[in-house]
């Protein structure tokens, strides 16, 4: 019984197939980048959110005409696919201010691809009360453009129903990740990633059905993954191809947990159902996500101490919780070339991991399979150091 897992793999390998079917059935698909666009608002208006990703196997040939080479290769690849017409089934696109380059790309996408709907969701970079209030106002703007585009009213009821469906997906995703806590994990990091990539390619209800099926299958498994001395957590910006996890897992480790914007980061907590659903959404998307793109100020301890270690503790203690819960004994910091947002976080995160005596290694990926061979030596040596 591996139908669910096979289906997830099939969608991962051929992401747009189902999307094109949905379009032919009259559905409107809206592309979005990263985890900040508020998907519930799309779902509530019967729009299908479809995550815009790059393709490591496709050489970048068109994007150089509109994005300079200092833009991270993930965004250049995504734009490249757009320019090649590979996202031509999308009715529109919803972007958020995740990083400076993504902001610029939102406008470049609008100019070059002329979708019928584009919205740029300005997203504050702090979690202060004023920022939350402001973000809620910005969500009202988003609501207005979506209502104009669809000609439908976005009622609180519809939004609450959508929040419930997306919360179900978050809960199911956490349940799937929990199946990696055992030794050996019941599902490999690479397989789990395929499921993640399927989820961002399907309407939420359809995704939830598939996810339920996958969890059922994985729970039935016995020793599918080999027991390995190294149980690793992979931290990083975006990993939208299984090549890295395959390489790590073939080098003699299990990827038991991740903290990336393609992984657990978007699923770690539910959206609270508040009287005005926009309050819960604003809080979730701004405060709950532990991403380096948002400045999270140190929570002061009782003695008002505000030193470096208190700051590190306040910013990264969630990682320690993951490490303990998933029993990880090493961390791979998977940076993406030119991703300053994540790159600037690395020195502090390294200090934090060293302070809790957790072996860690920083790898800079350049979004190509060709360079993974050289990185394999580092990963294997890292595993030897742990083991």
């Amino acid at each position, binding site marked *: 019984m591996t139908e669910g897992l096979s289906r997830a793999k099939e969608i991962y390998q051929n992401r747009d197939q189902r999307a094109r079917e949905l379009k032919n059935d009259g559905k409107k698909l809206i592309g979005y980048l990263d985890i900040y666009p508020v998907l519930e608002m799309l779902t509530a208006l019967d729009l299908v959110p479809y995550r815009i990703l790059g393709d490591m196997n496709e050489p970048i040939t068109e994007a150089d005409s509109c994005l300079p080479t200092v833009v991270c290769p993930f965004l250049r690849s995504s734009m490249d696919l757009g320019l090649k017409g590979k996202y031509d089934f999308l009715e529109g696109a919803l972007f958020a201010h995740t990083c400076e380059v993504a902001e610029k790309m939102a406008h470049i996408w609008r100019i070059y691809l002329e979708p019928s709907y584009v919205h740029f969701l300005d997203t504050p970079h702090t979690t202060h009360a004023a920022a939350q209030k402001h973000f809620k106002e910005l969500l009202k703007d988003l609501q207005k453009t979506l209502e104009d585009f669809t000609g439908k009213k976005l009622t609180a009821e519809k939004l609450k129903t959508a929040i419930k469906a997306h919360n179900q997906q978050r809960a199911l995703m956490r349940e799937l990740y929990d199946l990696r806590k055992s030794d050996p994990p019941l599902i490999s990091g690479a397989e789990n990633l395929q499921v993640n990539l399927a989820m961002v390619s399907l309407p939420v209800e359809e995704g939830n059905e598939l996810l339920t099926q996958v969890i059922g299958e994985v729970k039935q498994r016995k020793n599918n993954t080999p027991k390995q001395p190294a149980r690793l957590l992979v931290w990083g910006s975006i990993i939208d191809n299984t090549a890295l996890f395959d390489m790590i897992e073939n080098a003699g480790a299990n990827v038991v947990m991740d903290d990336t914007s393609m992984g657990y980061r978007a699923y770690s907590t539910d959206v609270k159902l508040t009287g005005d659903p926009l309050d819960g959404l604003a809080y979730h998307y701004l405060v709950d996500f532990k991403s380096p793109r948002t400045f999270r100020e140190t929570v002061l301890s009782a003695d008002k101490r505000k030193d470096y270690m208190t700051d590190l503790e306040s910013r990264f203690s969630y990682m320690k919780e993951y490490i303990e819960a998933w029993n990880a004994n090493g961390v791979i910091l998977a940076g993406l070339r030119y991703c300053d947002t994540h790159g600037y976080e690395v020195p502090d995160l390294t200090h934090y991991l060293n302070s809790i005596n957790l072996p860690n290694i920083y790898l800079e990926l350049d979004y190509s399979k060709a*360079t993974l061979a050289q990185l394999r*030596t580092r990963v294997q040596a890292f595993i*030897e*150091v742990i083991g």
Partner: protein
Amino acid sequence: MTKVVIIDEDEVVRARVESHTGAEHRRLANKVMEQALGQTGIPFDEIAYIVATGYGRINIPFADRQITELTCHARGLVSLFPSVRTALDIGGQDAKGLKIKDGKLVNFVMNDKCAAGTGRFLEVIADTLGLKLDDLGSISLKSQKKVNISNTCTIFAQQEVVSRISEGVTIEDIVAGIHHAIASRAVGMLKRLKIEPDVAFTGGVAKNIGVVKAIKEEVGYEILVPEDPLISGALGAALMGKEIVLKAMAKGEAIKKAERRLVEASFFEQE
């Protein structure tokens, strides 16, 4: 370079072979192995365990196990210099820094994909200057006033060398400048591990006395250099092999060996 080291149970080196690696790793691996066996007079089947290391480690058809060169270099250096805490290995295509504690590798750094500051960089420069690689070290020692050469890119450094020649700078000063470019880049990388004495320097580039001198100056004190820096990785691999065998014997377990064959194999062959 492909190297083979065979040790006996007393860790005495019974054979050592070094040979240039071509495109066909596997064919060469067999050849150097046969040469090494020839030196010892021991038949292939009597070798208790074979560990392959380095970039070609997955292309040794007869190896029982693959271990990275980082772990193997650390092991080899510890056997030569038990006091080593920090080590630098500069080979033909990359540079590595090792941190060693209680005889074991605990941390490491590697250079980026680029070959600047490696043996390959020296080869390119020697070629540009019309010199033999092996002569660079002694030539640089004659330098009176080394020039400053950028240490970021092999191709840019090569262009810089050409323009220094046209400015009339002596060959000795240019070569000394090149050695310092390598040393500052490598030691800069090593600093990420916090340099602690004793510091050892190994790998093919450690055969160059000019680079050894430059590294010493960058580090600020004496450094340890093996008599034969090319083979410390292979020696480490052999020692790791011995440990694996002893561990298995102590536990009374069978030694897990690969299905070995020492036949002409081609890298291009489909298995």
